[in-house]
């Protein structure tokens, strides 16, 4: 069996966009999902880790927690334009997650913007364990 690797890939969805993320632990999964999320908004290559924000979310169950976590990141983006480069989960359990994200406010003169995300949806939302890996699928409304 292949080693679980921390990462994400974009998946196809008719009118929206989605990602599938993977990690060896819930912490890795949530960090990978955050990175997938940011890569949809802008090209991460141009984003610098200039400042650090602290983000927390709570919900009942892993699916809902992932939705709440990404929604918090989306709120940081919507309110302050913050886009992340590196993400570290400092504490995670089935009902609560806390993490830090290093990044900077989006600057259209320097960053390559991709797309505006309206919402992190519950549509086909799923967090599951498979072959020793933690995986998730999330669809974003764009």
């Amino acid at each position, binding site marked *: 069996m292949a080693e679980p690797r921390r990462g994400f890939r974009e998946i196809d969805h008719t009118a929206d966009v989605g990602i599938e993320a993977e990690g060896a632990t819930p912490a890795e999964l949530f960090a990978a999902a955050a990175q997938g999320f940011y890569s949809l908004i802008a090209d991460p290559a141009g984003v610098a880790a200039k400042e650090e924000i602290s983000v927390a979310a709570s919900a009942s169950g892993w699916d809902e927690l992932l939705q709440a976590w990404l929604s918090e990141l989306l*709120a940081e983006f919507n309110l302050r334009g913050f886009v992340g480069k590196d993400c570290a989960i400092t504490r995670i359990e089935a009902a609560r997650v806390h993490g830090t994200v290093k990044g900077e406010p989006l600057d259209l003169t320097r960053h390559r913007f991709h797309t505006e995300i309206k919402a992190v949806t519950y549509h086909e939302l799923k967090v599951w364990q498979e072959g020793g890996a933690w995986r998730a699928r999330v669809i974003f409304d764009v």
Partner: protein
Amino acid sequence: MKTGLVFEDLRKLIPHIVEALFAVIPSGVGGEGAIPKLTKDAEKRLLRDGAKWAVANGYGRAEDLEHTEEGGCLRGADAELISERALERGLKQVGTLGSGNHFLEIGRVDEIYTPQIANALGVFEGQVVVLIHSGSRGLGYQTCEDFLRVMNNAMTKYDIRLPDRQLAATPIRSAEGQDYLAAMAAAANYAWVNRQVIMSLAEKAFLKALDISPAALGFSLVYDVCHNIAKMEDHVVDGKKRRVCVHRKGATRAFPPHHPQIPSDYREIGQPILIPGDMARYSYLLVGAEAAMEQTFGSTCHGAGRVMSRAQSKKHSQAINIDREMERRGVVARYQGRATMAEEMPHAYKDVADVVETMDLAGVSKRVARLRPVGVVKG
């Protein structure tokens, strides 16, 4: 919006106009600052008053409200039900287009199907027209998100089960249902203000780019219609007149002639409907027809609909030069995000002509004119 201008006289100036529009109407991600940042109090007033707030603050004219669905204000809006986060997001986004499939388009009228109706609407062949497609922006997205949580709890409470978790429902007469309608009305009012302000900024951009008088430009609103809204309306169901909640999601209101909610100057022709196609082919101006009241709760289509997912479209777009392709098709395009453009290219959409023709044959809505894009501003 229609103008008094003819495309042939303006052909060479289109790039100049598109540039002016792009400069004054913020688009794309985080697009903000079209007008001075609102205070929270002003924002709450506009959520209550809708488009008349915009007119009172110098954006557009009072007669525009006559040509706006619901007069640009849905009654029963309650700004207190809009979360702090949603209010915060709304402060700087009035007058901005946003991203995704939202756009501003300059078109030329290239075919008239029903001359009598076109005439009544002041629309003629070769005329320069403007289409705006945008909505309640971040305030609306956030309100949706906030209420999904409310609805999730309500669904447990009322034992409602749905096939998809992104769907949510609650009895319309429940406290949650009434709150949602009042919050949605506030968001709808924000959307009307947004479009009213964009329209006014677009007029200014035209005036500046062409250096002509408002009278010479002749900019005026034909109609403003919603593409996603729930409203309490009277309809005949099983032979009886009933008050029902009609949710037009990806649908457009299409009231036939003589419906009481149509402005008096359009009463004989039916309510105008704007159907965007894709960025290069065409969009349509329609009017509502009789079968809509009998078969579709007074509704018609909303747009072309996609044939390719965003990811597929992006892949397809890699093989073409987006700018050159738009130019080849006679459209001057200015945009913030290349990825959005790649996802929104015409190949991603069905031919909207088929969609509006189907609606025409069904007697739900009637084609009045076809509009060909010549300039596009996108997020």
